[in-house]
């Protein structure tokens, strides 16, 4: 499955953070073993107790001054500079971002906008490889945090504030991310996928996404079952933004912000009782008859 590891960077920024981690890790291991060695020597060398020794030892005090002040000061000042040197790699977009994608955190899914192309999608962000993309985030409800560890640091998604982070994938792949700030009962099921693909494939995807769904019997069923009260499909008469956008849903890899894999069987399960699968999410159990569910599944999976 898609990796979410901070130690498998797929961008310059994530690489810089991982490098910083390895520096911090090595320094920490050395310090740890020095302290433990001193501790073991201290405890095991001369055991036995006896009358208390009340002498003051100038050597011991000097040891505290050097090992406890001078050495740590040198170490942390070096680490501070290593940290500062990493900052530019993870800074918000400068002038170099060549594209902007807006992401709105919602309880409990990700609303994704490519505004220049009037595209709305959800829980999946497609980006071209090798192109710095500015991801601008804000929230409609509570605080979330957008975290795709293989691409960059996390950025909190705060209502009333727009922040940004850069995704600049240096290899193609599917990178999983997840909400990292507790945002309510389904915080645990608020994942997203970032799909980095070569520019030509990305452009094809973008062109395809921009196409509205044709009017069809399936679309009427979608509207008739009440789905369009919350979900939008481009080309449909009603465009509610309450729930995730379902345009081109058939191309998506997951259901319910990473809760299920997008297969016809799992989609049917989801429509039958979303509250059993993702308790507390905002989609009610509609109690639709089975043939209607199957028709909706066929329709949604056909939206390519």
């Amino acid at each position, binding site marked *: 499955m898609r990796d979410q590891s901070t130690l498998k960077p797929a961008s310059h920024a994530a690489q810089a953070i991982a490098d910083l981690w390895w520096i911090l890790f090595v320094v920490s291991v050395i*310090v740890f073993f020095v302290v*433990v060695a001193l501790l073991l020597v201290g405890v095991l060398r001369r055991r036995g107790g006896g009358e208390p020794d009340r002498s003051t030892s100038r050597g*011991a005090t000097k040891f505290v001054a050097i090992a*406890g002040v001078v050495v740590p000061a040198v170490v942390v000042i070096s680490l501070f500079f290593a940290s500062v040197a990493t900052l530019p790699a993870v800074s918000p977009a400068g002038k170099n971002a060549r594209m902007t994608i807006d992401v709105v955190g919602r309880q409990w899914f990700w609303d994704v906008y490519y505004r220049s192309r009037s595209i709305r999608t959800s829980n999946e962000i497609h980006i071209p490889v090798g192109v710095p993309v500015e991801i601008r985030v804000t929230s409609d409800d509570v605080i979330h945090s957008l975290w795709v560890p293989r691409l960059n640091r996390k950025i909190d998604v705060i209502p009333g504030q727009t922040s940004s982070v850069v995704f600049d994938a240096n290899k193609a792949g599917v990178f999983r991310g997840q909400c*990292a700030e507790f945002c309510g009962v389904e915080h645990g099921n608020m994942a997203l996928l970032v799909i980095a693909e070569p520019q030509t494939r990305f452009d094809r995807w973008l062109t395809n996404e921009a196409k509205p769904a044709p009017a069809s019997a399936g679309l009427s069923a979608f509207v008739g079952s009440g789905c369009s009260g919350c979900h939008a499909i481009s080309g449909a008469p009603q465009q509610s933004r309450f729930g995730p956008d379902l345009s081109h849903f058939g191309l998506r890899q997951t259901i319910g912000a990473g809760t299920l894999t997008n297969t016809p069987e799992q989609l049917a399960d989801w429509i039958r009782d979303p509250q059993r699968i993702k308790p507390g999410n905002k989609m009610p159990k509609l109690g639709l008859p089975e043939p209607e569910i199957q028709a909706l599944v066929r329709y949604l999976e056909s939206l390519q």
Partner: protein
Amino acid sequence: MEAHVERLEKVWAEPAGIVSFLTSVDHKRIGIRYLFTAFAFFVAAGIEALVMRAQLARPREGLVSPETFDQLFSLHGTTMIFLFVTPMLSGFGNYLVPLMIGARDMAFPRLNALSYWIFLASGLFIYSSVPFGLAPNDGWFNYVPLSEKAFTPDKNIDFYALGLIFITISTTAGAANFIVTIFKLRAPGMSINRMPLFCWAVLATSFAVIFALPSLTVANTMLELERNWGFHFFQPAHGGDPLLWQHLFWIFGHPDVYIIFLPAIGIVSSVVPVFSRRSIVGYEWLALATVLTGIVGFGVWVHHMFATGLPQISMTFFSAASFMIVIPSGIQIFAWLATMLTGRPVLKTPFLYVLGFVVVFVIGGLTGVMFAAVPFDQQTTDSYFVVAHFHYVLFGGAVFPIFAGVHYWFPKMSGRMYHELAGQVSFWLVFVGFNLTFFPMHVSGLLGMPRRVYTYPSGLGWDAYNLLSTIGSGVLAAGILVIVLNVLWSLRRGAPALSDPWGGNTLEWSTSSPPPHFNFPVIPIVRSADPNWDLEDRRQDALRLERGELLLVDGHQTLATTVLEGEAEEELHMPSESIWPFVLALAFSVVFFGLLLHLYGVATLGCILVAGSIAGWHRPQRELQDQ
């Protein structure tokens, strides 16, 4: 001599029975109550943690509902911070500070009783939410806007916000009491540079409490005004800002880490010299490091907010301050190591827990340094890496020393020895269980697992680490169970303890185990930082008792001394037992339940009761002068 002691017994004796239970102002009884009550909350929070670990043992486990899980982790954090560690260390402070400085009680004994009763009442207030399924559910730092009425309409958050405002009264009163006690009631000759390091720690902590808690109270008051009275401090749509809550919370929250940690290292500094059989190395350095930690701790709160999109230049400042906090910790670690290296250590249970503390705390400190590095923090904050980090700091930094303290002072408090073998078994179970529980969380965090998720899919490489953590939590729980059984068994069957079973260096070991109500038959006179190792001075105390000097037997009396030099100033008359602290705590409970249930008539009645209880408290009373 016998006559003097008899007279002290008579003056300080408290009546028996239930009335005495409610009216006692003896700092030792109050201290022990603090310890037992806080430990009960520890057990509750531990059970909450075990349920969470069971839920997370494997992917897509369905043991508890998401809503229940949210209440579990919120209650776990809130309990551990506010109802266990802080009051547990208050318990040690209460019991030990007067004994260590040679006083007969805290400076304000009735205020001390009030602190305990309010702690108990506010703890019960918060836990009264549990039977209704309305426990706090937005985490222990309770971020807005999630905790606003629009997103959490039920009373979960009102239990949290009002409960924390309530407990603040207790903590603040306790801190004021400690400051005055430590400044004014030290034995003659105990100048501030001879004061036990534990008292330095309690002093620094108390100042931190006084300056940090108002921020928490303000934040929670604003939140209650928003939730119930239509105010808009945090709502962007009305010109507010959700980050205001985070600033207010962490201006309290980060110093609170040191409020938790400092008294614990005070315990470490008490145990290390006694079991290393030498005076502590670098006393002045340690005292200074303690104070410095308390101060610098106020300058680092923004490192909890590095991912919020603040300007890089301000983050760099807070990053530098956070790196700087390493220095005082370095001083402490190496002063303890130097003491051990130049001593002749004795490996008894309290010392084992201290050694475990050093190992665990160094790991927590090192990951703490990592979080001072802004980019690394932004990557791993709110992941399981941070869960691992703060458990290494808080469990390692505070709970290991607490367990050291429990064993170290058990003979003093109970008059009996604990079972040494059981103590050592408990240490190894706790040490192994702790590391097995929390070390794998570093890895799951680096592999991208966010905290506070009630479940996770398989296939992300997290499964094995989560299972290890769950197994570890069982081992850890077994270790804690051994401690409980050891304490319960030893209270009845333990060998009788001498007044000084360890060869301790501080004054609590110079009086009997357990100490009499009046602590010391004669106020000791001190000439060094290790007064109980000054055998000649202690012999002089005994001689003065025979001669009848400095006995202070006319009522509840103790000696006030000057702040710096510790020169005798005046004899103080202390208040004796009283029912009013208990009544006042009840009256406050009426206020807070009234506010919780929106019964404003009841809340008003509560305010009247509070005013009445304070009046009753201050009614002049005849001192027990007995002739």
